[in-house]
C-alpha cells in the first residue's frame, strides 16, 4: 500500500505518465493525492480568505435575517397570527410548508455521511462536512418554525416535559410532541455528528493558526493529538453514530409526516406518508447538496480540487434514483387514495389536479419527475455543474410545491365545501420563509470561514486507500480496505 502511495506521489512529481492514469487522476479526487501539508494549506487558505465581497454578503444576509426573519416575526408576535395568510380552514400555511422543507433539506448530511459512509461510497469523502453542515443549519432553520407558527410563542415551553408549577406534563399522544422530541434528538445528534469528525481537522487548524482562531480551535479540538486511543474512540463513536443516526433520520421525517397522517384530514390520512416523506426529503436534501457544492466550488478557494465532476455525476445519479422512488411513492399514494373512492379524498385529489391552484400540482410533477427524468440520465448533463445547479434548484422548488400541495391546498378543500377556502400567503409569511433561507445562508457563510469545510483527514485516508491498478491493458482504480 505504502509503495503504491509512494509511487503515486512520485508519479505526480514526474511529468511523464500514461494518459490513462492521468485521466483517472483528473477524474477521481481519491486517485489524485496531494501531500497532506499542501492539502491543509489549501483548506486553510479557503477558510481564512475573506474578501470584501464576502463581508458584504455576510452583513447583507445578517441584516436580511434581522429584518426578514426576526423583524417580521417580532411584528407577528406583537400583532397576532392574523398577519399571516392562514384562515379557516387552512390553519397551517407557509410556516409548516417551509418547516417540512427544511427538515427535508436536513436529510442531506445524514444521508451523505451516514448512509454513504456505512455503504462505503468513497466519493462522499470531500463533501461530507458540507452536507452535515446543511443538516445542522437546515434543522436550525426548520426548528424555528414550530415556534414561529405558535399562536402564543411566549409559552412555547409548555410543550417541554419537565416538572413544573402547572402540574402538567405534555401530551405524549400528540404528533407535535413527537415532533419536538424527534427534532431535538435529530438536531443534537446531527450537530454532534458534525462535530466528531471535525475534531482532527480542528486540531489541524489549531496547529496553523494564531490569535483568536487558535484559541477557538484549541478549545474545540479538545486537546486532540491523534493518538491511537483518540482515533479508536472517534472511530467507535462515528461508527455508532453512522448506524444510530440513520433510524433517527428516518424517524424524524416519518414523524413530520405523521403530523399530517394521524389527522382525519382527507388526503392526509395515508399509511404511506412516512416513506413518501422520507424519500421526498432525501430527494430534496441530496439536490440541495449539489446546489451547495456548486456554490462552494464557485466561491471558495481551492475547491475545484476537492469537488470534481465525479461528485456531480454521482449525486446526479442518486437524484435520478430518488426522483424515481419519489414518483413511485407519489403514484402509490395517489392511486390508492383515488381507488379507495372516499368522496372527500377523491375531491381533494381532483381539486389538486384541476382546481384553481392546479399549477402548483403540475409544478411539483414537472420539477420532481419530468426534469430529473429528462435530463439526469445524460452523463453530460450530470457533469455540467451549472446545469446541475439549476436542476437541483428546480427539484427543491418541486419539493416545496409538493409540501404546499399537501398542506394548505389539501386543508382548503375538506369534507364540507361550505368551508372551503383559498389560502393567500402574506408578505409577513413569505418574509419569514425567506428569512430562514437567509439564516441558513448566513450561518453557512460564517461556517465556511470558521471551520474546515473539507474533512482533510478523511480525504487523505481515502487517498491512501486508493490506487491505480493495471488490469490487463488498462488501468483501473482500486481500493484497499484499510479499516
Amino acid at each position, binding site marked *: 500500500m*505504502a509503495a503504491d502511495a509512494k509511487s503515486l506521489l512520485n508519479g505526480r512529481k514526474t511529468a511523464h505518465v500514461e494518459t490513462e492514469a492521468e485521466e483517472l487522476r483528473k477524474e477521481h479526487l481519491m486517485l489524485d493525492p496531494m501531500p*497532506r501539508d499542501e492539502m491543509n494549506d489549501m483548506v486553510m487558505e479557503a477558510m481564512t480568505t475573506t474578501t470584501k465581497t464576502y463581508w458584504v454578503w455576510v452583513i447583507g444576509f445578517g441584516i436580511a435575517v434581522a429584518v426578514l426573519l426576526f423583524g417580521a416575526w417580532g411584528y407577528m408576535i406583537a400583532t397576532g397570527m392574523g398577519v399571516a395568510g392562514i384562515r379557516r380552514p387552512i390553519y397551517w400555511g407557509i410556516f409548516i410548508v417551509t418547516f417540512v422543507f427544511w427538515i427535508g433539506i436536513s436529510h442531506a448530511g445524514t444521508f451523505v455521511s451516514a448512509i454513504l459512509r456505512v455503504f462505503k461510497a468513497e466519493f462522499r469523502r470531500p463533501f461530507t462536512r458540507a452536507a452535515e453542515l446543511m443538516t445542522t443549519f437546515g434543522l436550525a432553520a426548520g426548528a424555528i418554525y414550530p415556534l414561529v407558527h405558535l399562536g402564543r410563542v411566549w409559552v412555547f415551553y409548555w410543550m417541554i416535559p419537565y416538572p413544573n408549577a402547572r402540574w402538567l406534563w405534555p401530551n*405524549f399522544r400528540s404528533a407535535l410532541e413527537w415532533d419536538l422530541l424527534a427534532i431535538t*434528538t435529530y438536531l443534537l445528534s446531527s450537530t454532534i455528528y458534525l462535530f466528531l469528525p471535525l475534531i482532527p481537522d480542528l486540531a489541524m487548524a489549531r496547529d496553523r493558526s494564531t490569535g483568536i482562531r487558535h484559541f477557538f480551535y484549541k478549545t474545540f479540538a479538545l486537546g486532540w493529538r491523534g493518538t491511537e486511543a483518540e482515533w479508536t*474512540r472517534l472511530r467507535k463513536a462515528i461508527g455508532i*453514530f453512522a448506524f*444510530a443516526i440513520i433510524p433517527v433520520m428516518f424517524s424524524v421525517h416519518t414523524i413530520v409526516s405523521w403530523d399530517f397522517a394521524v389527522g382525519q384530514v382527507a388526503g392526509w390520512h395515508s399509511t404511506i406518508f412516512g416513506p413518501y416523506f422520507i424519500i421526498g426529503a432525501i430527494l430534496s436534501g441530496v439536490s440541495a447538496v449539489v446546489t451547495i457544492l456548486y456554490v462552494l466550488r464557485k466561491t471558495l478557494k481551492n475547491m475545484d480540487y476537492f469537488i470534481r465532476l465525479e461528485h456531480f455525476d454521482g449525486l446526479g445519479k442518486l437524484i435520478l434514483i430518488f426522483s424515481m422512488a419519489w414518483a413511485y411513492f407519489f403514484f402509490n399514494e395517489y392511486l390508492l387514495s383515488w381507488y379507495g373512492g372516499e368522496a372527500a379524498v377523491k375531491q381533494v385529489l381532483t381539486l389538486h389536479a384541476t382546481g384553481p391552484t392546479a399549477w402548483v400540482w403540475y409544478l411539483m410533477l414537472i420539477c420532481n419527475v419530468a426534469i430529473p427524468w429528462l435530463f439526469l440520465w445524460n452523463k453530460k448533463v450530470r457533469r455540467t455543474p451549472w446545469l446541475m445547479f439549476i436542476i437541483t434548484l428546480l427539484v427543491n422548488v418541486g419539493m416545496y410545491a409538493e409540501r404546499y400541495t399537501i398542506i394548505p391546498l389539501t386543508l382548503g378543500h375538506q369534507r364540507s365545501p361550505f368551508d372551503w377556502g383559498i389560502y393567500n400567503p402574506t408578505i409577513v409569511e413569505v418574509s419569514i420563509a425567506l428569512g430562514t433561507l437567509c439564516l441558513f445562508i448566513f450561518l453557512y457563510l460564517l461556517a465556511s470561514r470558521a471551520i474546515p469545510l473539507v474533512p482533510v483527514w478523511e480525504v*487523505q485516508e481515502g487517498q491512501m486507500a486508493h490506487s491505480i491498478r493495471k488490469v490487463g491493458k488498462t488501468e483501473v482504480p482500486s481500493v484497499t480496505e484499510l479499516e
Partner: protein
Amino acid sequence: MDTSIRLILFKEDQINQASDAIETLHNQGIHDKDISVISGVPFTEKMLGRPMAWTRVPLIAISGAVVGFIIASLLNFLTPNLYKMYVGGMPLTPIPTSIVVTFELTMLGLLIATFLGVFVEMISPSYGPKGYHPKISDGYIGILFSCPAHIEEKTCLELQDLGAEMVDPEEVKQP
C-alpha cells in the same frame, strides 16, 4: 529512573518504517505503555503492531440508551397518571404512541452518551507519553516514547537509520 520523552516523525507514506521503528523500540525494552503513536490519519493498531487501544465509548453509549429508555418510560407511563386527562377516546397510556417517544428518547440517550463518552475520555488523563508536534497534522506519523536515558542515544541512532526524523525534545509539548 531517569527517562526522557522523545518524539520521532515519519512521513505519511513511511508507515512500514514506522511499524519497524515500533518494533525497534520493543527490542530496546521499551514497553507498549511507554509508546504512543500519534498521527494525522487513523491507522489501525494492527498496522503498527500495537495492542488494541482501550475505550469505553460503546459502554457509555449503551448506558445512555438505557437512561433514555427509562426516562421515556417514565414520561409515557408515569406522567399521564399524575394528572389524568382523557383525550379522544384513547386510554391514558396507549402503547402505540409510547413507542414513538421511547424510540426517540432512547436514541437521544444513546447519541448524547456517545458524545459524552468521547468528550469525557478526551479530557480525561491518558496513559502513555505526552507530547505533540504540529507536523502531525501535516500527515506525519509520530512515535512518542519515554526512553530511559541510558539507551537514548542508541535508540535514536537506530531509529534514524530507519528514516525517522528526530524532533528536538524542546519542541515536544502538549498542544
